[in-house]
């Protein structure tokens, strides 16, 4: 009897110790990612068919921002500012958007396998972009492709959400199967546009399907900047509420979350971010899947770190992948989407097996 009434045992570290440890990891990771980005950006800017020493890159960057440094010769300056830097900035924007969209999507679906590429939202957005190119639409100037990609992405993510959810839950199997169906349908639409498009448009569309940053220019950067900036700026505001959503829809509502509104706003943000990425770079899969997962394993599932962290790591990963894509097979260039799929698919496979083990088979 006395044994049963033994008083509560406190863990030696105390209850507050655990999250503090995770918070420490989060700060370390943030700092590490920021430093890695600061190193990788000038390295990537200096690497390529026309090498520029890293010191010169930094000098030119400082010169243009009016902080001293020196201007380079005409060719180097042109390569750096007209070719390399727009591509790097675009890689950062697209990577951050994809990483952040992945983290948000997994939070909204309450499912760690949700990702814009896997569930077909990227392909959906690509249909909008391809339609703009194939039909030669330019009623909104350089923003036409982005806007159409956003509209198509939004329709797709709403459709997937409605189809994949039942009873306030998203089953893994339903989600993946919905993704297959959506990807197939989007593929068919893109195929149709290809069939009716002229040769120039076909070349451009092929580029979309493979995913690439090779055609980066400053106007393209400007075209995606608003979408990406709005999405990346809004996302962290919903971090706490996404944490609560992990408990389920009703418990989240019991804790004061307006679940309906949260869902609508976040689906809009996801569509914005995905459209931003797809409209300039085509379909680049698995970044949104792999990045939040790695961070969750390292620093826990709290969204206050996960969302900005995924944007940072997404930017880093895509910049590195793009650097690899344009240097590994020099002078040829690997399509970026092919490269990320090559590396991401095995990870996805491993994740599927792990999730399945965790659930004891598909329900």
């Amino acid at each position, binding site marked *: 009897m006395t044994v049963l009434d033994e008083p509560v045992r406190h*863990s030696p*570290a105390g*209850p507050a110790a655990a999250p503090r440890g995770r918070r420490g990891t989060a700060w370390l990771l943030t700092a590490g990612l920021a430093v890695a980005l600061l190193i990788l950006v000038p390295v990537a800017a200096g690497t390529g068919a026309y090498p520029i020493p890293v010191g010169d890159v930094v000098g030119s960057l400082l010169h243009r921002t009016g902080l001293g440094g020196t201007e380079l010769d005409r060719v180097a300056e042109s390569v750096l500012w007209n070719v390399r830097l727009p591509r790097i900035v675009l890689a950062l924007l697209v990577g951050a958007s994809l990483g952040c969209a992945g983290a948000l999507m997994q939070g909204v679906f309450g499912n760690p396998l949700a990702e814009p590429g896997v569930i077909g939202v990227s392909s959906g957005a690509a249909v909008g972009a391809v339609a703009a190119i194939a039909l030669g639409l330019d009623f909104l100037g350089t923003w036409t492709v982005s806007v159409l990609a956003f509209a198509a992405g939004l329709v797709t993510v709403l459709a997937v959400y409605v189809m994949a959810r039942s009873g306030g839950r998203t089953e893994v199997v339903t989600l993946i199967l919905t993704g297959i169906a959506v990807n197939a349908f989007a593929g068919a639409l893109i195929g149709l546009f290809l069939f009716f498009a002229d040769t120039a448009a076909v070349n451009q569309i092929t580029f979309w399907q493979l995913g690439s940053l090779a055609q980066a220019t400053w106007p393209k950067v400007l075209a995606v900047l608003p979408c990406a900036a709005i999405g990346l700026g809004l996302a962290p505001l919903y971090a706490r509420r996404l944490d609560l*959503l*992990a408990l389920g829809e009703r*418990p989240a509502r019991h804790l004061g*979350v*307006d679940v309906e509104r949260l869902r609508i706003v976040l689906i809009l943000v996801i569509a914005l971010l995905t459209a931003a990425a797809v409209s300039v770079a085509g379909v680049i899969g698995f970044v949104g899947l792999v990045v939040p997962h790695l961070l969750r394993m390292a620093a*826990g599932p709290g969204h206050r770190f996960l969302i900005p962290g995924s944007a940072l790591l997404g930017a880093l990963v895509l910049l590195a992948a793009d650097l690899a894509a344009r240097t590994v097979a020099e002078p040829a260039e690997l399509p970026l989407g092919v490269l990320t799929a090559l590396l991401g698919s095995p990870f996805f496979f491993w994740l599927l097996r792990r999730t399945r083990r965790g659930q004891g088979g598909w329900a």
Partner: protein
Amino acid sequence: MRLARLVPSRPAPPPRPAPGDVLAEAEDVRVRLGTRTVLDGVGITVRAGEVLALVGPNGAGKSTLLGALAADLPVSGGVVRVHGRPAEQWSAPELALRRSVLPQSASLSFPFRVEEVVRMGRAPWAGTDLEDEDDAAVAEAMARTEVTAFAARPFSALSGGERARVALARVLAQRTALLLLDEPTAALDLRHQELVLRLCRERARAGDAVVVVLHDLGLAAAYADRAAVLCAGRVAADGPPAEVFSGRLLSEVYDQPVEVFPHPRTGAVLVTPRRDM
């Protein structure tokens, strides 16, 4: 205006209720789920300072009534009032300061740690004066439910009974005056069943109102101040367990012969099914 709505201003915390205040009330409530009428003309009053047990056979509408009191479900007839105001007139953040809800089963999409899960119960108070109580409320709730020992473990690594207690700790940490608990004892062992109902009783003595769905009529008789027996979407009886729990009523409601008799030593009400016929 639009921006102001994106970042909602925090509602003011409600004042502490006085004993006997009506914190939730269902009046002639009718709830339809699909084509089935699950609640039909249910009236019930939940007062501060008392533990109200909802009992009845499977499908009688206990969880639905709890959901209606929690403002989860739209009612198709009658009215549900929470803290004196029709439930649908409260916003989600306002309700979260006034009532907490323990769902029948606890799930979690991502591997948060136990302490983080319990801390989620404090989310409604972020930005209010009572935010300072967060650490104390979390620590107390974990100690009361005896989950402090695995505070640092991921929720997904816990057993069913441990999860149930963590979910309860989250609800306790929310520190609302109205607690709605759907089968808090279902996954628990004997000792923890008693612990949970003692907790309910303590919260009621401290001035809160506790509504608890129970299957164990013995537990309901021992700990509830009042019991409402639901049967086929209606309240068959409502009152102190000693008065409400009669062999005849329970046998009829459960469609199973039931005996009610006093404990030989303490005189407490005992309820068992008759197995000798």
